[in-house]
């Protein structure tokens, strides 16, 4: 088989371009035999490595040279997915129905009744299942372009194999996609047979289980893989990464900016916009030239799980981003209020999304502003903007130095015009609510 591959590479004139991936197994030392670029890889992983190589150098010709254990056992996921992605590589799958390199254990392609060191009584369907027909399995996928099974059982078959090898490489050269040639091969040493007898066993026994022939040939209709587009220049990379947006010169304003140290906890149900609220606060603080950090806690549920985040806004660099003892608590639901109220620092500020704090939830040493923010936002057309209403109340009650930056941050973060309008209205409504509460 080595000779067939080498002849094909030579005949097609691709020796300089070809890279051979030789995984652990019967093909592991292939690099000794081929004067081409060689990469030796872990057992079963050749199609994955081939993917990495081919994507790096699409002009190269990448051959994945695999045995039956490598491809059909440990590497079954890699071959399936490389074939399914239609990677423009060529796989030569040498099927000798046994694990040769390790001394003769059973392979996924070992025949029923065939003895091996790990099937000493002969492969048994009830324990080991049937041999796998790799070409047929891959034929169930959309992407592969060329799949053929050949054998080395006599001269005619050997010449047929030579043609298949060449054809598969041509598929890759033309950029059509994934090609695989399964080669039924004798293994006289491990089968403990004379070489000519082993060859005959391939001819007579193996071909009964693994029918020869072209399993798929879509070379006529397969489209040529589009060439990769020109990469952007180095100067364009910052724009690609969204790094050139100018958020304006940061400015701090208001008294207390120099010594501000806010440790904010925002908490509620998943879906109430807890994280977004925290993000807006952090962005506003950053826009005002302050140090900020934002840290989410999360449950695995996407909706209705608990959600809270820690936000720190300070004049000096922030050490721990975690807030265990907040001086501002934004509780968007009752469970959050109950959970975090005890931890609030004395003289802290609590905003609660409810008409009033529950009677057993009282901290006389903190300021509490309770208002039905969700209902307010609902009245404005979007209950989900309850978080922004609460934000408005916070800005009104806390006299923070990043007050002016908030509308700009909302404009940047909220993509939908409809929601932006609701948010800005909710912000104002929240401020009003805070004024009313404070004046009580």
């Amino acid at each position, binding site marked *: 088989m080595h000779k067939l591959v080498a002849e094909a590479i030579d005949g097609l004139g691709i020796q*300089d371009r070809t890279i051979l991936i030789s995984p652990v197994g019967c093909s592991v030392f292939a690099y000794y035999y081929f*004067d081409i670029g060689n990469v030796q890889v872990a057992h079963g992983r050749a199609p994955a490595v081939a993917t990495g190589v081919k994507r790096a150098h699409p002009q190269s010709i990448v051959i994945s040279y695999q045995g039956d254990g490598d491809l059909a056992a440990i590497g079954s996921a890699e071959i399936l997915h490389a074939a399914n*992605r239609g990677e423009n590589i060529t796989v030569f799958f040498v099927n000798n129905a046994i694990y040769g390199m390790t001394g003769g254990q059973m392979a996924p392609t070992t025949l029923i009744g065939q003895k091996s060191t790990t099937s000493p009584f002969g492969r048994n369907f009830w324990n080991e299942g049937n041999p796998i027909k790799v070409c047929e399995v891959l034929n169930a996928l959309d992407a592969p372009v060329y799949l053929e099974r050949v054998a080395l059982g006599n001269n005619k078959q050997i010449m047929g194999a030579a043609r298949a090898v060449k054809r598969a490489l041509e598929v890759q050269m033309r950029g059509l996609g994934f090609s695989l040639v399964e080669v039924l091969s004798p293994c006289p040493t491990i089968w403990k047979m004379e070489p000519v007898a082993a060859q005959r066993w391939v001819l007579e026994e193996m071909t009964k289980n693994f029918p020869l022939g072209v399993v798929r040939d879509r070379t006529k209709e397969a489209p040529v893989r589009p060439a990769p587009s020109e990469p952007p220049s180095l100067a364009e990379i910052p724009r690609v990464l969204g790094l050139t947006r100018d958020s304006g010169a940061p400015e701090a304003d208001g008294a207390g900016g120099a010594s501000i140290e806010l440790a904010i906890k925002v908490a509620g149900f998943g879906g109430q916009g807890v994280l977004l609220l925290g993000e807006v606060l952090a962005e506003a603080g950053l826009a005002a030239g302050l140090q900020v950090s934002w840290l989410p806690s999360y449950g695995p549920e996407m909706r209705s799980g608990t959600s809270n985040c820690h936000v720190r806004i300070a004049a000096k660099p922030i050490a721990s981003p*975690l807030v265990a003892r907040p001086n*501002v608590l934004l509780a968007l639901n009752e469970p959050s209020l109950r959970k975090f109220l005890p931890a609030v620092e004395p003289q802290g500020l609590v905003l609660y999304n409810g008409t009033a704090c529950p009677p057993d939830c009282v901290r006389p040493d903190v300021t509490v502003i309770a208002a039905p923010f969700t209902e307010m936002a609902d009245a404005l057309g979007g209950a989900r903007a309850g978080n922004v209403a609460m934000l408005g109340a916070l800005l009104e009650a806390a006299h923070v130095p990043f007050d002016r930056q908030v509308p700009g941050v909302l404009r940047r973060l909220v993509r939908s015009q409809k929601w932006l309008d609701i948010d800005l209205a909710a912000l104002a409504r929240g401020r009003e609510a805070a004024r009313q509460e404070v004046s009580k």
Partner: protein
Amino acid sequence: MHKELIKGNEAIVKGAILAGCRAYYGYPITPASEIAEAAALYMPQAGGVFVQAESEVAAINMIYGAASAGVRSMTASSGPGLSLMQEGFSYLAGSELPCVVADIMRGGPGLGNIAPEQSDYHQIVKCGGHGNYRTVVLAPDSVQEMCDLTMLAFDLADRYRNPVVVLADGFIGQMMEPVAFPEARAVPPAPAWAVTGTRETRANLVTSIYLEPDVLEAHVRKLEEKYKRAEQESVRFEAREVEDADIVLVCYGIVARVLKEVVESARAEGLRVGLLRPVTLYPPAGGILQPRGRQRTGQRRGSGLRPGRASQTRSTAGGGACLSSPSYMGSLGVSTITTSARGSCSTRPTTARAAGMASCTSWWRRRSTGWESRTAPF
């Protein structure tokens, strides 16, 4: 200077692309999925490759292929995924291939949970794959470092022809902080040893097989020389107030952030506490800290940088005690002291904080004999 508020996980990808990485192969896993998602968005636009692999096993091998081909490539995962990649690490190190892998650690072992934990210290720093190898390990403690250390990781990977791990936890990965991003760097050309499908590289072979035991031993010694060189030249750490410290907190990642606050408040109370934060977990930074006098029992008189070492910013090899922090909050019981916007400061230590300090102290004492023996604990 323009700063962007960005998540740690996303900063890794932007940093990688700025460093010239143009290939990402990975599999989703909480809390690292944002890295794959950001790569899926930005890599193709930057002219690079993104493929969602079928598993972490496949991902690390795709990285192996890209690295063999001379391309800067990376992947990211969390503990369970890194476990799957261990064979890949061994092959990458054995074949002397550069690459960067980010591990955003979560609760373990087993499925554990998706909450942050510094659970992969042993797997990553002591190397969970087979054979004698090391990976350089960088441990960011801020989102800025997620960017900067990822960029550094690519340089170190190329310098040592070895995998480099950026070891963060779920907190650092998920949190948002402002980042000043540096200039974009050009994609470096493929190294001369890479296999690129050209006449010049036809003779190249990427392999980790050395059949003859003598030859393999020579190869392993060669790898060892590389690691020794890294220990000489690439140690990075941050030390705060250790010169006169009675207690030094050794920590990395999110724990270091929390303990920085502890140092501040402890010092405010008159306790002489310092902090050593290794930035490279391998090569180890612990060797820079030496106790000042020998200790037989009980109270330590003083500790800190050994005379003469104070000016050193790099340590030599010898390992020293680069101790892992236990899972973040459990044993230290830290709570934070904050000042409110109105300026009042809480001065009474909370019970939890006192307990945390006590456990720090006893932990230090238990380990203190380990300092003197100077043998690496790993």
